[in-house]
């Protein structure tokens, strides 16, 4: 997934973008739990939750198709496991795995593409996530830009020379990592030179307003209620 695109999305303006990161983190966590623990009437419940997320994407003014497609990035992994479940004679479990992982990915995507990453990580920090973990995520995020760009350069260069076969691609990947590593060192040096002391200074800390509390309450309750109602109706 292109980090640059997510970054661009996260900097757009909408009601969802304006909410305090902590409110969105809470909403996303509740949603993940609701999805993960859904059991009876899974199909209609999934459909309901899916529509709920689509509504979120629309409110956030994100391109619906683009977002739905990008959340599919998890599918190759889960499809593999689903196939294993199917072969083991438990196809239903495979289906549930696919639905749940896709919905989870879409929920996380919605959160990430409505909150610029520095603000999001600061939100996690303020609700008590370990600093070290956040540091690693921040670096990963910074280097992701560098690595994807390197990869783009290399794939362009390869395309100019008539494409890349598997073995060449594997070799290129190795070079990509080596280059990225040495560039990561250079970046770290540049950061130190500009006074970096281990903490990224994101945007000013936001205040948790009444609107954020209201949003958090609504966004946390909605998927839960949705699931309970659909389960009741389906039963």
């Amino acid at each position: 997934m292109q980090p640059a695109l997510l970054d661009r999305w996260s900097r757009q303006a909408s009601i969802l973008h304006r909410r305090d990161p902590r409110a969105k983190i809470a909403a996303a966590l509740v949603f993940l739990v609701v999805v993960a623990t859904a059991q009876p009437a899974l199909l209609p419940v999934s459909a309901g939750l899916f529509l709920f997320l689509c509504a979120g994407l629309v409110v956030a003014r994100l391109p619906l198709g683009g977002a739905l497609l990008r959340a599919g990035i998890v599918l190759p992994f889960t499809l593999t496991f689903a196939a294993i479940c199917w072969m083991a004679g438990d196809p239903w479990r495979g289906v549930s795995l696919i639905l749940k992982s896709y919905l989870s990915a879409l929920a996380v995507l919605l959160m990430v593409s409505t909150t610029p990453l520095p603000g999001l990580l600061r939100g996690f920090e303020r609700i008590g996530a370990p600093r070290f973990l956040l540091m690693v995520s921040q670096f990963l995020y910074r280097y992701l830009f560098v690595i994807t760009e390197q990869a783009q350069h290399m794939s362009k260069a390869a395309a100019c020379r008539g494409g890349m076969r598997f073995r060449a691609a594997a070799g290129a990947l190795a070079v990509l990592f080596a280059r990225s590593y040495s560039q990561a060192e250079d970046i770290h040096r540049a950061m130190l030179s500009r006074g970096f002391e281990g903490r990224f200074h994101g945007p000013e800390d936001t205040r948790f307003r009444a609107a954020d509390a209201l949003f958090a309450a609504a966004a946390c309750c909605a998927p839960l209620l949705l699931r309970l109602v659909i389960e009741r109706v389906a039963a």
Partner: protein
Amino acid sequence: MKAVLEVRNLHFRYADGTPALNGIDFTLAEGETVALLGANGSGKTTFLMHLNGLLTGEGSIQVCGMAMEKPNLRAIRAKIGMVFQDSESQLFMPTVLDDVMFGPLNQGRSAAEAAKRGRAALETVGMAHAAGRAPYHLSAGEKKRVAIAGILAMDPEILVLDEPTTFLDPPGQRALADLLVRLPQAKILVTHDARFAQALSHRAVFFQSGKIVAEGSVEELARRFAWDLEMEGAR
């Protein structure tokens, strides 16, 4: 003239045993521009990395009256603005403005103040129009300007530039020279381009095997080491 930088008898050996610096004595006066010339591998970059504590050798270094010691590091890095050869590694934030704000934020300035300084610095280098763009989409010359803006935003007293003309076409080199001439800070300029050095520097020193073997005007040194400089040009 007040000395802003004083280096005495600096020695350094890389972890693999390569003796990179073998007794460097160097002084930089306020507002002065000095060109560092010398063959590939003569120790120029290694020397620069000592000036803000990225590497630590034996000998003494004083920056604006402060000894190169851990407690002074923060203040020293605020005084010395380091522009690396590879702008790719120097620009690591998602947007140009974020990038130039990185230094001031690390210096403890508020987001509003950092943005103000960032914009002013972009104005100085003629890149204000690119504030919202992604750094990795800029041309080489534009990247170099933004990298310089990122340093200027920290309000340094000394600018250190490692081969700033690499990747720049002749008009880009001229534009860079015009920009640098306008900046009042003392400068250390590593370059293989004798003409560029001549246009900007008050004097030059020549590095050879980790030592300064000659000192004088750029013309003198270029004549004396003509063979070396031409070799560099041909590479």
